[in-house]
């Protein structure tokens, strides 16, 4: 109760001349009516509240002050709802050294005027979190999203309409220092793609060199925010996602957690759940020679090309097939001379000037051991300066 009633019982405090630590006073109005907490902007929370001002004909001064809550004073707006033509806000003044302002309102009659006061209130916000349970085959998941309201604004809201960027507004009270978690939406059977990614720039090339440590290959679930995925009605908010998997014994295991950024409709997100140690990549540089040497008059090499050979052995120790996304990097100007997977021409996508992406289909291991594929990249870097 110590910080309760800041904005809600303003009049009470004003008339009783109480020295409450937290107070907001507004002359001549009882309680606030309809209050809306707008959480559609992740950076700031807008409060809209309606109050009935008892105005007299002529000039009215209305005092609005707030203690122990953080309101951006420049954000405070007053909107006259009943008689916008007859009731005019003339000016706003700020008393010195006080979190307060005084509105000067001109009225051409005596009115019980409903006004809407809106302001940006700090330390009240919402988080979105996700919880998903994947099926045993890892082809789809049941997605649940939770809304977490956090109110540390200094103000209690007994009853307010909470508005988000999408969906219906709902009624919810929330006290100061209270956190409330509620189900936001459910999406059953959302299709997922499981992705393994090996990036030559971030992962060690030779697992043998790390004899007491495994190289984990990051594993992610790819989710598309579209109709086919039983989603796609609105952007998915940024937030933390915890993933579980049905274990086939009427229980689940925890797979891992990640944060997603905002996913607009039609876009995808990838949630990194953990590392696979059952796919092993051993990459080696087998050749690095200079060709097409060009020299200056003193015989010094000023320009050359290279002839390089990289081999990568990919082993799948899993008893299921997998699709590995392999990312290779070649800096500068380059030309692929020969690129093969198990001796056959290999396809890759050029993601940008220096990045190549291979999709490697790995069968499951068999009785003889792991499924093995070998990538060979023979390329030239061109016009290299020493």
């Amino acid at each position, binding site marked *: 109760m110590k910080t309760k009633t800041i904005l809600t019982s303003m009049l009470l405090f004003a008339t009783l001349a109480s020295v409450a630590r937290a107070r907001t006073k507004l002359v001549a109005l009882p309680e606030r009516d309809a209050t809306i907490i707008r959480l559609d902007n992740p950076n700031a929370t807008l409060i809209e509240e309606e109050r009935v001002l008892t105005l007299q004909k002529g000039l009215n001064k209305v005092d609005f002050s707030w203690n122990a809550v953080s309101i951006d004073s420049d954000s405070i707006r007053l909107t006259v709802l009943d008689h916008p033509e007859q009731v005019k806000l003339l000016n706003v003044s700020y008393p010195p050294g006080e979190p307060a302002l005084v509105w000067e309102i001109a009225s051409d009659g005596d009115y019980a005027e409903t006004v809407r006061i809106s302001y940006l209130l700090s330390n009240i916000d919402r988080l979105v979190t996700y*919880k998903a349970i994947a099926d045993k085959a890892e082809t789809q998941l049941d997605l649940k999203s939770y809304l977490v309201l*956090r109110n540390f604004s200094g103000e209690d809201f007994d009853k307010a309409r909470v508005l988000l960027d999408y969906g219906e507004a709902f009624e919810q009270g929330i006290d100061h220092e209270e956190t409330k978690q509620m189900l936001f939406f459910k999406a059953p059977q959302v299709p997922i793609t499981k992705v393994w990614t090996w990036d030559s720039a971030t992962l060690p090339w030779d697992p043998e060199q790390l004899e007491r440590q495994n190289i984990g290959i990051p*594993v992610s679930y790819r989710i598309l925010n579209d109709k086919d995925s039983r989603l796609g009605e609105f952007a998915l908010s940024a937030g933390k996602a915890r993933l579980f998997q049905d274990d086939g*014994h009427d229980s689940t*295991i925890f797979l*891992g957690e990640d944060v997603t950024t905002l996913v607009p409709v039609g876009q995808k997100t990838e949630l990194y759940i953990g590392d696979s140690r059952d796919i092993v990549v051993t990459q080696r540089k087998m050749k690095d020679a*200079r060709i097409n040497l060009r020299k200056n008059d003193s015989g010094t090499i000023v320009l050359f090309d290279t002839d390089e050979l990289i081999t990568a052995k990919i082993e799948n120790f899993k*008893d299921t097939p997998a699709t590995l996304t392999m990312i290779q990097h070649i800096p500068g100007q380059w030309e692929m001379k020969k690129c093969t997977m198990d001796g056959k021409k290999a396809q890759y996508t050029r993601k940008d000037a220096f990045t190549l992406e291979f999709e490697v289909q790995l069968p499951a291991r068999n009785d003889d051991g792991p499924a093995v594929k070998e990538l060979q990249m023979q390329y030239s870097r061109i016009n290299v300066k020493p």
Partner: protein
Amino acid sequence: MKKIITFTTIFLLTGLSAAKVDLVTLPNRDTTQLTIYNSADLTLVRDGRSLTLKEGDNKLQFSWANTLIDPTSLSMLPKRDADKIDIADLTFPPRVQNLGLWTIDSQIGGSVPIEISYLTSGLSWRAFYMGTLTEDEKTMRLQGYVVVSNNSGEDYENAQTRLIVGQVHLLDQIAELARQQYPYGRPGQVPPPSPRSAPVRRAAGSEVMDGFVVMEAAIPMKKEIKKEGLSEYFLYTIEGTETIPNTWSKRLPSFDTDDIPVVNLYKFEEDRYGPAVIRYLSFKNDDEHELGETPIPGGMLKVYRTVDNARHLSYEGQSNFKYIPVGEEVELNLGAVSDVIVEPKLMDEKTDNYRFDNHGNVNGWDEIRTFELAIKNTRNLPVKIEIKRNFRPHTWTIKNIGEAKKYYEKVDLDTVKYTLTLEPESEQTIEYELTTYQGTRTEDWDRMQKQ
């Protein structure tokens, strides 16, 4: 030092015994399932309880003082009539810590089975192994154990215990989430840094718990551990249930396999190990080696050898090995030895093929060195040895002399490998001539690569 540990133990026992997880209008747990991870300080707990609901709104209070529960992971699930029972929200009320209030909107009255699940820190498990070599070192008996430790602040009685092998991705440490003043923090708070690859620290007090391991080891229970693969993980389910009081540990046998054929492998690589020969024990996690049903979780292996018919043992060394997938070859590093010796000797050194620039200065030449690798096996057993040589700069060519050709393999652009098996108490020599190209002679080397 001992006194401090004793004191800590007492403190832990008395300080945390007050810990309690309770749902006020509920009877105690009916069933409990623990799924414990070893790559992170993380356990998924599932409590089955019977809840007496009335029609309409029900409020349920759940508190977890003195435990290490992550409140943001709390979840409730009706196990029956799920369509008639709506878990409306979970509130963390102001100015009370470690307490949550569920609002349940029910269309039915009476007793309903529900499940409460959450993540907690403080429970952990690890694997360790004992290997016993036969006298001839051709086969090994491998015994695997798991040790489960509870330092969570909560006693778990008759809990179905499951262990997860795998590397899980976590953004926040559960122990840190458990310690937060407000479950989801405050607006504007900087979230804790994301530990993408930070090493996972064990819960404090694990040294204390190790003391209990030894005590518990005296009364092992023979229980089956069922193993199955799920996603990138392996799930070990211990038969029946376990009671693990807070601060206690329990050791359980995981597997016991006899007659695993092993290879005594010795490695020599100056750049990596210095002048010593390193002994490895090598086998494969597959059918032929009496293994291969599941991956083997990483852990410490202590290797012994049977030395006589009275089954006396000698201690051969220990190795902390990594996770071994099914079908992969394991090489267990048992440390440096002195009974297998490799001595590289430079036998000849010369330069040749000088090149000169326009001013008559030297700008290119070859350096030619002849090496002899003297290899000695002083053991009364045959050994396999792998010798790696690293050459820098990478502009080199090699001429293997005599037997060397048979054992030679190029590993990558600056590494070569010789692999050979030596009979008991024998010696062998490998000889090669290495030419490195310097200065403008590297251009000639480049040209040679084209051919």
